[in-house]
């Protein structure tokens, strides 16, 4: 019998906040072009159980695990080719997911913009346990003050005078990186492809381009104020002002929140790449996966190698044990490299060809823990009970 619109919808019950038992101690959130997968392991990280696909048929570029404020909340941004993007949450490790009454990340109608995709979900600092941010395409930042239930656009960046000159990169005009200052919630860095790095010191009211020293190979002026195609920026919470940046050609470090950048591509086979990951405990240690070029977006020499610096970028060394060293025409995208928070740290990455690799010893050796997944676009590692790592 058809429903009549006179029967008004009843308000759904709030999600229960009772804690579920985690299926494991280490969680890998893996977003693919056709759904999300949860991989679980114990602290040894030798055997993994897979759960999924969640949201089958939908691409999932953004995943997060928020353990602040007593939560154990998974957040996912599935995107249906037909019906658009929404942020959904699970408080029971993916057994059930929220179904928001309305699309919860939406541009105000008067902006003239419509959401294409959600690229990043990031927790704010632990001092604001209900605050989250998400970066979207077309490039904009949204904020939630209620743990991810509702979202509003950050007007200061939306109205930035540079916006009209930002251009889409190969993946679209996306805001993909969000870094918060753990000591000052008013300070934040975001990165846009292509637009570059922007920093706020006043909680998002105003933003300044911070790209001095970062090159833009694809523009006549190779060092513009903004417009760079920044692929990823990372920092360590214990030294937040020092940023590492993987550029569309270029590998950089800033020691002053992006005021200026210095080249640190010392010993890498290519300074082109997408992915970059900070070590969870060592502030001088960063991981990257160099890519041959922007025209041939596969790892150099068809050898799958992660590179690690242990000295803040003065030198980089390949990590290849257990990874294929011939005929590996692999691509690792910007959010497909991650770490957990254990000691020794687990490092993880996924390929566009659907292979998922894990290292339980900080990258010294690797094992394939899954093959044949859909193209992997996002990997997020976390140790249950060890805080958010996004």
């Amino acid at each position, binding site marked *: 019998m*058809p429903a009549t*619109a006179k029967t008004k919808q009843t308000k759904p019950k709030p999600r229960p906040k009772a804690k579920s038992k985690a299926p494991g101690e280490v969680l890998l959130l893996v977003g693919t*072009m056709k759904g999300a997968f949860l991989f679980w392991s114990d602290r040894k990280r030798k055997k993994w159980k897979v759960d999924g696909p969640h949201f089958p048929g939908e691409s999932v570029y953004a995943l997060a695990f928020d353990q602040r404020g007593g939560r154990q909340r998974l957040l996912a941004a599935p995107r*249906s080719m037909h019906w*658009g993007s929404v942020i959904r949450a699970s408080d029971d490790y993916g057994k059930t997911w929220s179904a928001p009454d309305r699309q919860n990340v*939406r541009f105000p109608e008067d902006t003239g913009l419509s959401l294409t995709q959600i690229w990043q979900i990031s927790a704010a600092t632990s001092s604001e346990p209900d605050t989250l941010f998400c970066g979207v395409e077309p490039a904009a930042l949204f904020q939630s003050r209620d743990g991810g239930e509702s979202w509003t656009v950050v007007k200061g960046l939306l109205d930035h005078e540079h916006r009209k000159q930002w251009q889409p990169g190969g993946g679209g005009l996306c805001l993909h990186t969000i870094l918060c200052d753990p000591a000052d919630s008013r300070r934040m860095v975001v990165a846009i492809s292509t637009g570059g790095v922007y920093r706020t010191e006043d909680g998002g009211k105003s933003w300044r381009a911070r790209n001095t020293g970062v090159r833009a190979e694809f523009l006549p002026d190779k060092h513009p104020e903004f417009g760079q195609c920044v692929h990823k920026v990372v920092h360590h919470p214990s030294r937040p002002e020092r940023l590492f940046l993987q550029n569309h050609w270029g590998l950089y470090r800033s020691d002053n929140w992006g005021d200026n950048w210095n080249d640190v591509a010392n010993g890498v086979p290519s300074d082109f790449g997408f992915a970059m990951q900070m070590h969870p405990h060592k502030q001088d240690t960063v991981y990257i996966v160099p890519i041959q070029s922007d025209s041939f977006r596969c790892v150099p020499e068809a050898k799958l190698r992660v590179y690690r610096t242990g000295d803040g970028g003065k030198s980089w060394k390949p990590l290849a044990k257990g990874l294929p060293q011939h005929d590996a025409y692999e691509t690792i995208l910007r959010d497909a490299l991650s770490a957990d928070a254990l000691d020794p740290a687990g490092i993880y990455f996924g390929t566009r060809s659907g292979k998922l690799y894990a290292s339980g010893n900080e990258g010294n050796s690797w094992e394939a823990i899954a093959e044949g997944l859909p193209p992997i676009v996002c990997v997020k590692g976390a140790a249950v009970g060890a805080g958010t790592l996004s």
Partner: protein
Amino acid sequence: MGVTVELPRALQPYAHGESVVVLDEPCASVAEALAALEEYWPGVVDLVLTEQREVRQHVNVFVGDENIRFLDGLATPVPPGSTITILAAVSGG
């Protein structure tokens, strides 16, 4: 005489599981019908229209058997007793 709106499976969770919704009031156009639907099931309309009130690229809306893309879009008239059908386009991946 009202207007019947048929929903695809993907949208039914946003209408409390209903596959068919009857709008009791007459609607002059598809835009008016969707606005009436939005009053009760806003989540459904969010998934059909973008923030700019445009039908999403890979969604098709029919009045009877006619795709509104080839008529007057959201201004397409909706005669009393009509059925509006919302469907995913054949695109996929």
